[in-house]
């Protein structure tokens, strides 16, 4: 008999006219790991919330959720409270915000023990210490009295897991438990979950958008799209021989292919020597404290048609480096040459006419588009500076052309940014850069906020544009799979310094440095998807 059994589970939001889940059937046996995979809007998180009675009050639930023979949807709140937190544990995505910031970690781990097991304060504290050891938090005794903001993201996620496991549940539901974490931390949390599952005989429902994680942890996989279950089966079989077209689409969304090399005779577009970024330290009563170095002495050379991938974890200084190369970072030092001009010698006014040669695309497609201008005005804005003789009609015609180039409907240029989807907004940002015919584009995590299938299309677009115009790219990303698909060379940054640099294949297949090896291992790149 299965431990968790969903039959015809449907979640609707009548006010918004949305059906988030549509007749879902799913079974999970004791001790089994089932991965639930889908892109944003597929309804995968609704499954966890519906099972635990945590949906917002506007939601209408129908169908059945049976846990160990008990119908959960029929339970009243006290009866449900005896099950959730005790027999079903939950781990959520946001490690920054999923813990109550006002209470100590020890207090929060002890909460389920005191509620479900009636442990005394002292006994709950002792058990909390054991749990901290179990989830691998060092120095448990002193960490118990710490507050969440004093812990790192990985530690917080471990605390979440400790809370979920406190009452030795039969089932653990983990909703994107590693998404907001750096890859190396992500790998550790994943290993911890796999290990705990084996040791404690847990059943695990693992909800994620990331297919690569699925292959490492789940015995069976269920694929969700637009609220419907499209395919379910053993993970290995699903990857080898996907049945549903939606599954094939998801699998094909993994970035593939390699960058074709550029002849060594191609002209140098960008040359940087000893680039540093030093932010002023925290202000102490009108005077600045000691500066904080975000980037320290980075060199790079880029030829026309080439892409350099800049890789690193959060805080590695890769975005600061990108801004410094574009001369958008007032705190930057060092030499930056664009084509034959030394940019660092120029002031803002002298720099302005040169700017059409090098353009940025930022990560957050909403934040990089002014909400008060129409899409067409945003795209055409650079022409006002660099082609001042064009009249409004000519600018508009050029904007329409740029829309077509990034495969957007030119008729949509009269709409405002909020009317576009995330992928379309990123196309707008690309069009805004491309309309100036730049030779260099600095792409700062341009695909990170997007679903894999959308990301694939953006990657394809970037490739085509590069091939058509001989563009040079600085491609900043934490996502090694995308970097591998796009870059000629890779530069690995850590704490603002270069760790390793070289041709893409060499760095990502045969890394020299331990840090790079850890990154590559954590990203699950080694074999590549096709060979697995």
């Amino acid at each position, binding site marked *: 008999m299965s431990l968790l059994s969903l039959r015809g589970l449907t979640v609707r939001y009548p006010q918004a006219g949305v059906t988030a889940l549509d007749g879902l059937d799913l079974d999970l046996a004791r001790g089994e790991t089932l991965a639930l995979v889908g892109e944003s809007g597929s309804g995968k998180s609704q499954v966890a*919330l519906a099972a*635990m009675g*945590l949906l917002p009050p506007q939601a209408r639930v129908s169908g059945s959720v049976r846990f160990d023979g008990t119908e959960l949807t029929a339970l009243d709140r006290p009866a*449900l*409270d*005896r*099950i*959730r*937190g*005790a027999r079903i544990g*939950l781990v*959520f*995505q*946001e490690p920054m*915000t*999923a*813990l*109550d*910031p*006002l*209470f100590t970690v020890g207090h929060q781990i002890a*909460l*389920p023990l*005191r*509620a*479900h097991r009636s442990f005394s304060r002292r006994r709950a504290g002792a058990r909390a210490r054991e749990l901290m050891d179990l989830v691998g938090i060092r120095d448990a005794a002193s960490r118990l009295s710490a*507050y969440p*903001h004093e812990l790192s993201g990985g530690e917080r996620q471990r605390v*979440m897991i400790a*809370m979920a496991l406190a009452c030795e549940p039969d089932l653990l539901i983990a909703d994107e438990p590693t998404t907001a974490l750096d890859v190396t931390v992500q790998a550790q949390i994943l290993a911890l979950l796999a290990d705990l599952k084996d040791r404690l005989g847990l059943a695990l429902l693992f909800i994620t958008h990331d297919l690569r994680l699925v292959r490492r942890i789940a015995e069976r996989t269920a694929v969700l799209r637009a609220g419907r279950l499209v395919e379910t089966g053993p993970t290995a079989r699903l990857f080898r021989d996907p049945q549903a077209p939606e599954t094939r689409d998801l699998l094909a969304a993994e970035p593939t292919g390699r960058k074709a090399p550029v002849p060594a005779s191609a002209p140098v577009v960008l040359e940087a020597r000893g680039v540093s970024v030093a932010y002023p330290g925290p202000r102490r009563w009108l005077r600045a404290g000691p500066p904080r170095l975000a980037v320290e002495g980075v060199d790079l050379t880029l030829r026309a048609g080439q892409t350099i991938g800049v890789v690193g974890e959060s805080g590695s200084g890769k975005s600061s480096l990108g801004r410094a190369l574009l001369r958008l970072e007032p705190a930057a030092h060092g030499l930056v040459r664009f084509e034959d001009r030394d940019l660092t010698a120029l002031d803002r006014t002298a720099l302005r006419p040169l700017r059409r040669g090098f353009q940025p695309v930022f990560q957050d497609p909403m934040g990089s588009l002014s909400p008060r201008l129409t899409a067409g005005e945003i795209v055409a804005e650079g022409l006002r500076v660099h082609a001042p003789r064009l009249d409004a009609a000519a600018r508009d015609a050029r904007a329409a052309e740029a829309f077509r180039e990034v495969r957007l409907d030119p008729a949509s240029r009269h709409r405002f940014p909020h009317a576009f989807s995330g992928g379309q907004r990123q196309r707008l940002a690309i069009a805004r850069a491309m309309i100036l015919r730049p030779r260099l584009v600095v792409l700062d995590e341009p695909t990170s906020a997007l679903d894999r299938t959308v990301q694939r299309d953006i990657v394809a677009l970037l490739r085509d544009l590069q091939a058509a115009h001989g563009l040079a790219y600085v491609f900043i990303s934490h996502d090694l799979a995308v970097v591998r698909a796009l870059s000629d060379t890779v530069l690995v940054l850590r704490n603002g310094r270069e760790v390793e640099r070289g041709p893409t294949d060499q760095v990502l297949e045969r890394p020299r440095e331990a840090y790079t090896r850890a990154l590559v291992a954590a990203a699950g790149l080694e074999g590549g998807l096709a060979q697995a």
Partner: protein
Amino acid sequence: MTAYILRRLAQSVPTLFIVVTLSFFLVRLAPGGPFDLERPLPAAAMENLRRVYGLDQPLLVQYGRYLAALARGDLGPSFSVRDLSVAELFARGLPVSMTLGGLALLVALVLGTGLGALSALRRGAWLDHAVTTLGTFALTVPGFVVAPLLQIAFGLSLRWLPVGGWDDGAPRNLVLPVVTLALPQVAVIARLARAGLVEVFDRPHWRTLRGLGLPPRILALHAVRGAALPVVSYLGPAAAGLLTGSVVVETVFGLPGVGRYFVDGAINRDYTLVLGTVVLIAVFVLVLNLVADLACALIDPRLREFG
């Protein structure tokens, strides 16, 4: 912690100094003097008075003397109320104002948090809308309209309560002034409490706590502590305002509090009384803000870096 309190108190000395200095010279810039009566005094008597109160000295000397006296805690004699010092005037008026303000604060806190919590728990229901709408009314209708209306309704028509007077703080006399004072505060606190609770309910950690199957008692503890911050930090300045009296309420209900001292003092050119009132209010604001900040730090560990 003690060091932090001491440092904060030390930091408030410059603020106090600026307030006193500005007030001192602003008061002296004004035309007229404290002894300009309808029938002018004989020149000799005027001279005498000015000498007694030190007004014959150069302005800077007077300023220095005032600061020196203030440093000793001496607020000086009142110019308009004969034979009483400013401190004695405060000793008479403050108990009245603080009784009214304290009661109003208590009422506002109890009613405001209660209504705010109810409306947060019934988000979107008619009760929530009713509380929000009434709150807008209470916040918009000024006290100098509410107070006379209350007098008409409960004093003149129903004759349940006296329309004014202090009567040694008889409870009957306190009701209408306290209601007038508390009304807008109830509305503000209800808004803050509702917003605070709604924010807690929308935070991811609330889902975590509910997912743990905790009993309502423990959930309530987490909710209240999470929502307390905006209310507590509002209470600092609000309490300072309420405890130092209200011109409107004390005028309309004819109460002998300190709320009128400032206006009366300014009209009568009672320099020491005006300055004393400014100092009194500034001290209340500084101290109560410090208390509120400390309470906030107690509630939220992230605010505890007493840098």
